[in-house]
C-alpha cells in the first residue's frame, strides 16, 4: 500500500514475546542453583533467566513451559529461545524444542505530524476510544488483525499485534486515518 509516499516511516520493534515448550519436567531448584544469571521465585513457582546475547528474559516453569520476552525481532526471539533450551540441556534436562510461537510484538512508530485525538475518535467512533481521564492516548483496535494501536497526540503510536506482519499491516491501515486528523506539521 502506498500509504506513505514521501517519508518512509520507521517502525521500530521494541519487544517480541514468544513461548515454547521443553516437553519435560524441569527442576527449578537445580536451575536456580547452577545457573549464573537466574532469579528464583519460589512463591510464584518460576525461574527468571536472563541471557546477555540476545538480550532476553525468560520465565521458566517447572512444567516445561517457557516465556521469552525482550527480543527485538522474531528471529532474535527464536535464537534466544534456542539458546535457552541449549542451556537447559547442558544443565542436564532432556529438553526438546517444541511449539515455538511468537505471541506478541510491540512496535513504536512516529508520525511526522501531530494528531487531533478528539477528531480522530469522532471519526472512528466504535473502534477508537479516548478517555483522557484514564490514559492520554486514544486506543484503536483492529479486529481482523487482532492488533491494538495506541495513538498519542504527539504523533507517536505504539502498535501491538500477534506478529510483525500484522503490525506492519496495522500501521499501513491506520496511517490514512491519522493523516486526516493531523494538526501541525513537524
Amino acid at each position: 500500500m502506498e500509504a506513505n509516499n514521501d517519508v518512509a516511516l520507521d517502525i521500530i520493534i521494541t519487544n517480541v514475546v514468544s513461548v515454547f515448550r521443553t516437553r519435560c519436567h524441569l527442576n527449578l531448584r537445580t536451575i536456580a542453583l547452577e545457573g549464573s544469571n537466574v532469579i528464583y521465585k519460589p512463591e510464584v513457582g518460576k525461574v527468571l533467566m536472563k541471557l546477555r546475547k540476545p538480550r532476553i528474559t525468560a520465565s521458566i516453569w517447572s512444567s516445561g513451559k517457557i516465556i521469552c520476552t525482550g527480543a527485538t525481532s522474531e528471529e532474535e526471539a527464536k535464537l534466544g529461545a534456542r539458546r535457552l533450551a541449549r542451556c537447559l540441556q547442558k544443565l542436564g534436562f532432556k529438553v526438546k524444542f517444541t511449539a515455538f510461537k511468537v505471541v506478541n510484538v510491540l512496535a513504536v512508530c512516529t508520525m511526522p505530524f501531530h494528531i487531533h485525538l478528539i477528531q480522530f475518535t469522532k471519526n472512528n467512533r466504535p473502534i477508537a476510544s479516548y478517555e483522557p481521564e484514564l490514559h492520554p492516548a486514544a486506543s484503536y483496535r483492529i479486529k481482523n488483525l487482532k492488533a491494538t494501536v495506541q495513538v498519542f497526540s504527539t504523533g507517536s503510536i505504539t502498535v501491538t499485534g500477534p506478529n510483525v506482519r500484522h503490525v506492519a499491516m496495522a500501521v499501513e491501515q491506520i496511517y490514512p486515518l491519522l493523516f486526516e486528523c493531523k494538526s501541525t506539521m513537524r
Partner: protein
Amino acid sequence: MSSRVCKTCGCTDIDIDQARGNAVCMGCGSVLEDNIIVSEVTFVENSGGGSSAVGQFVASDGTGKTPVLGSGFHTTLGKESRAQTLLNGKRQINHLGHQLQLNQHCLDTAFNFFKMAVCKHLTRGRKMAHVVAACLYLVCRTEGTPHMLLDLSDLLQVNVYILGRTFLLLARELCINAPAIDPCLYIPRFAHMLEFGEKNHEVSMTALRLLQRMKRDWMHTGRRPSGLCGAALLVAARMHEFRRTVKEVISVVKVCEATLRKRLTEFEDTPTSQLTIDEFMRVDLEQECDPPSFTAGQRKLRLQQLEHELAKKIDEVQGEICSYQDEIELELESSRPKLKGPYASYAREDSSDDSVSVASGLPGNEDDADEELKAAAQQLTKDFYSELMPGAGEASRAEEGSEAESEQVVLPRYPPLASLLGPLPTAASLGLSESIQKCITEKDVDGNSENGELDLKGIDDDEIERYILNEKEVKIKTELWMQQNADYLKEQKEKEERIAKEKELGIYKEQKPKRPPKKREPIRASTAGEAIEKMLEQKKISSKINYDVLRDLDKKGSSPGAQPEETPSSPGGRKLSGRRKRNMAALGLGNPISSVGKRLRPLISAHVGKKPASSQQAAKASAAVVTAETSQPVVVESGPVVYEDAMEEEEEEEEEPCVSAMQLMGGNDYGCDVDDDDGL
C-alpha cells in the same frame, strides 16, 4: 366450559354459577359439576387489614420457574433471579445516584442501561457495584453532567482504572458513544467548591476563556481535564484578587501539585500569558500556539544538533591531545623500568600481534557488546598497569577520559590507541574471540523441528557453558540461597511434616479452604473484672497462668505477697471459699488499677517461680478475706468452675519463661479494661 347435555334429562340448558362453582341443569336440577376450577383473580386479606391478590406475577421474558420457598426466605419473595438482579441494581443505582445528586431522569436512564447490560450478560463475573457505577457514569457523560469518574471511584473506594475498564467495556458493548469530556463542564462545579462568593460567575467566565485559550494553544489534548481546570481556575482567581493557594485548588480538583505547576508553566510559555488582565478580556490573540510536546520535541532536536557539533569539535581537539600524549608516552617509555616476571613475556608477545588481532577482531561493524568488551578490557589493563607503572598510569587515565567523551570515535582509532596503551589483553587472550566472531557472523536458522530436536546451528556452546556455574560456585550459591530463603524453606518443611502426619492419621484433607472465622458474641459484662473473666473463658489462653493473680490485679494497695500467711486449715474447702471471695474482691470497683501495670510483671514472674502457688494463693485468700467487706456482692457463676481446672493445672506447673499477662491476653483487651476501670 362447554355446555353439555344433561345426563338425566337430556336438556342442554346448563347454568354455571361461578361463585359457587357449580354447573346445574335447568331442566331437572341435577348438579353436573361441582367445585369448578376458576381462573379469576382472588383476593385474600393480610394481617394489616388490606387485601392482596393471590398468585405470582410471571414476566413474559423470564423463564417462569418459581424458586422453592423452603430455605431461601428473602424479602424478594417468590421472584425469579433476573427480577431480583434488576431490583438490586435499581436499588444500588438510586443509592449512588442520590449521593451524586443526579435527578430522577438520569437515574431512570441509568437503570435502562443496566437492564441492557443484564440482557447482554455483562454483569456476569463482574462486581455489581462496578457495573452500576459504569452505568451511572455513562449517563453522566451522555447528559453532560460535571461528574468525574474519580468521584464515583471515591464513593465506591475502587481503583479508578478498574472502573474505567468496566465503563469502556460497557460503552463498547452497548454501542453508546459517549461524547468527549469538555473541561469547560467542570468549571462551574470547581468554582463553586472554591467558594468565590458573589464573584463566582465572573471568575467562572474568566476561567472559561482561559480554558478556551488553552484549547486553541493545544494544551489540552491527552491531558486530564481536571488538571487544566485547576490551572485555569487558579489563574482566574488570582486575576480577580482571590488568594487561592495551590493546595486548595488541588484538593478540589484532585490532581497533584506537580501536574498543576506543569500546566501553569506551559501556559506561561504561550504568548497569551504576556497580556495584561484587561487585554486578555478584550482581545483574543489570533495566532495559535504549538502544543507543548511539539516545542519539547524541537528543543530535543536542537540539543541533538548541538551535541553533534560539539562532537565534531571534540574530534579535532582529540587529535591535538593525542599528539601530546604521543610525546608524553615516548618520554615515559624511555624512562620506564624494565618489566620483570611473567607479565614481561606476556607484554612482549602481545604487543607484536596487538594491532593485528584487534583490527581483525572488529571486521567493520561495531556491536555494542564488542564495545563493552573492549571498554572492559581496557579498563582492566589500565588498572593493572597503574599498579605496575604509576607514570604510565597517568597518561592512560588522561586518555581514558578523552575516550569516554568521544563515543563516536571512529574505527581507525583503535590500532594507534592500542599501541599507545601498550600490551592490551586482547580478545584472543581473554578467550572471547570465538564468541565475538560467532556473534558477528551469526545467521539465523530456520526450518526447525517438528520432532522437537533442538537445532544447534548458530548456538555457541562455549558461551552457554559460561552460563552454568562450576561446582564450587554452585556450592557457594546453594549456601547463599539457603540462607536467604531460610524462612520459606522452613515453612515448606513444616507443611510437609504436617501433611505426612495427617496422612498417617488418615485425616489428611487436601486443600483446606479457609473457613470463615468463628464469630464470637460480644462479651456483655457489667464490670471490668467480669469482662476479663468472660474473655479468659472464651480465649482459653494458657494453662500456666495463675488466674488468681490476674483477678487480683485490679485490687488495691495491700501487696498480697507481704501479708502474713494464714495457711488455711482445710485447704480444699478453704480454697473454694477463698476463691469465691476473691472473685468478689476482683470485681470490687473501688480498687485503683493504675498500679496494675507495674505489678503485673513482678506478680506473674514471682508466681511462675518454682515455689508452689498454693502458699501465695493462701496469702491472697487472706487478703481477699480482708477486703471482702468492701467488695460488692456480685455473683459470678462460671468463675469457680473455670478456676478449678486452672488451679489443678497450675499445681503441675513447669518452668516457663516469664510471659506477661499483657502479652498473653493481647495488650489491647487488657488495656481497654484498665481504662474503663480508671474512670470509675
